[in-house]
C-alpha cells in the first residue's frame, strides 16, 4: 500500500490544521489541508481523501495547485477564503445560544444537548458524545463534501441536524467507545436505535 507522501508545511491554519505541499507521488505539487498529522498513512492517498471519516489521522484535500498558472481553471473543493470563514462564523454565532456562543468564542467548542446525551462540536472527525447514562464516545459525522465548506459552516450544518434530527445523527455516526476502545459504524450503541437499511 502507498504511504502518505512527504510534505512541506506552508502555513499553520486555525483549528490545528496545516496547509502543506505534497513533495512526492502522483499528487506532488498539490496543496493539502492536513486536519491531523501523525504517522504516515497506510492507505492510498486517493482512498483516504474519499473516505476521511474512516481514518485515524484524517485530512482534507485542497486540490489548489501549489504553483498556480494564470490559466488554471477554478476547481471544486477550493479552500474557503477568509471572507467565507468570517461569513460562516457570523452565521454560526447567530444560531447559537448565549452559553454556546461564549463557549465557542473562548475554546472553539460548544455543546449541543439531545435526548440521547450531549454532543460537543469543535473538533472535526472527533465529536465528543456523553450519553444520558454517562457513557462517553468519540463520533465522526460530517456533511457531504465538507471540504468545500468553511469550518464554521460545518458546525452550522451539524448543529441544525442535531437540534432537529438527533436520531438521524446518531444513526449515521461512526463511533468509538472511549472506555473500551471498541468502534463501529452507526448507529451508536446503547441508544435503542436500529441499524439503518443500506441503499
Amino acid at each position: 500500500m502507498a504511504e502518505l507522501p512527504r510534505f512541506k508545511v506552508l502555513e499553520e491554519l486555525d483549528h490545528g490544521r496545516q496547509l502543506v505541499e505534497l513533495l512526492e507521488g502522483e499528487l506532488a505539487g498539490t496543496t493539502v489541508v492536513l486536519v491531523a498529522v501523525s504517522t504516515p498513512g497506510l492507505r492510498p492517498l486517493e482512498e483516504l481523501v474519499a473516505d476521511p471519516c474512516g481514518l485515524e489521522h484524517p485530512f482534507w484535500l485542497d486540490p489548489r495547485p501549489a504553483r498556480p498558472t494564470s490559466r488554471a481553471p477554478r476547481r471544486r473543493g477550493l479552500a474557503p477564503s477568509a471572507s467565507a470563514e468570517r461569513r460562516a462564523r457570523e452565521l454560526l454565532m447567530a444560531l447559537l445560544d448565549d452559553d454556546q456562543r461564549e463557549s465557542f468564542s473562548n475554546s472553539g467548542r460548544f455543546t449541543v444537548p439531545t435526548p440521547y446525551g450531549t454532543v460537543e462540536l469543535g473538533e472535526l472527525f472527533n465529536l465528543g458524545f456523553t450519553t444520558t447514562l454517562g457513557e462517553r464516545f468519540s463520533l465522526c459525522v460530517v456533511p457531504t463534501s465538507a471540504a468545500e465548506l468553511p469550518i464554521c459552516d460545518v458546525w452550522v450544518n451539524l448543529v441544525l441536524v442535531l437540534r432537529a434530527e438527533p436520531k438521524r445523527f446518531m444513526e449515521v455516526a461512526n463511533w468509538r467507545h472511549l472506555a473500551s476502545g471498541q468502534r463501529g459504524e452507526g448507529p451508536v450503541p446503547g441508544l435503542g436505535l436500529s441499524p439503518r437499511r443500506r441503499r
Partner: protein
Amino acid sequence: MGTMRILDSTGDTVVQWSELDDRAVLEASRAFDAQRKLRRMAFARLKGAAPTESVKISSFDPSAEEIIFVRPIVGG
C-alpha cells in the same frame, strides 16, 4: 422579507423574497426546489422564533423568516 441561506464555499449564498412580491416568492420557491433535488436539508425559523428554534421543512414556506439549506450528513 424572508431570507434563504444555502451553505457553500463562500459561506452561504443568499436568496431573499417578500411575501408581497409574487415573482420573488416564485424565484425563491424554485431555488428551494433546486436544493431539495440535490438532497439538501432545509431548516426554517418561523417569524418570531428564536435563532435556536428551527424546524426541518420539505416544501418552501414563504412565511418563514429564515431558511438554511445544509448538506446531508454521513459517517465515515
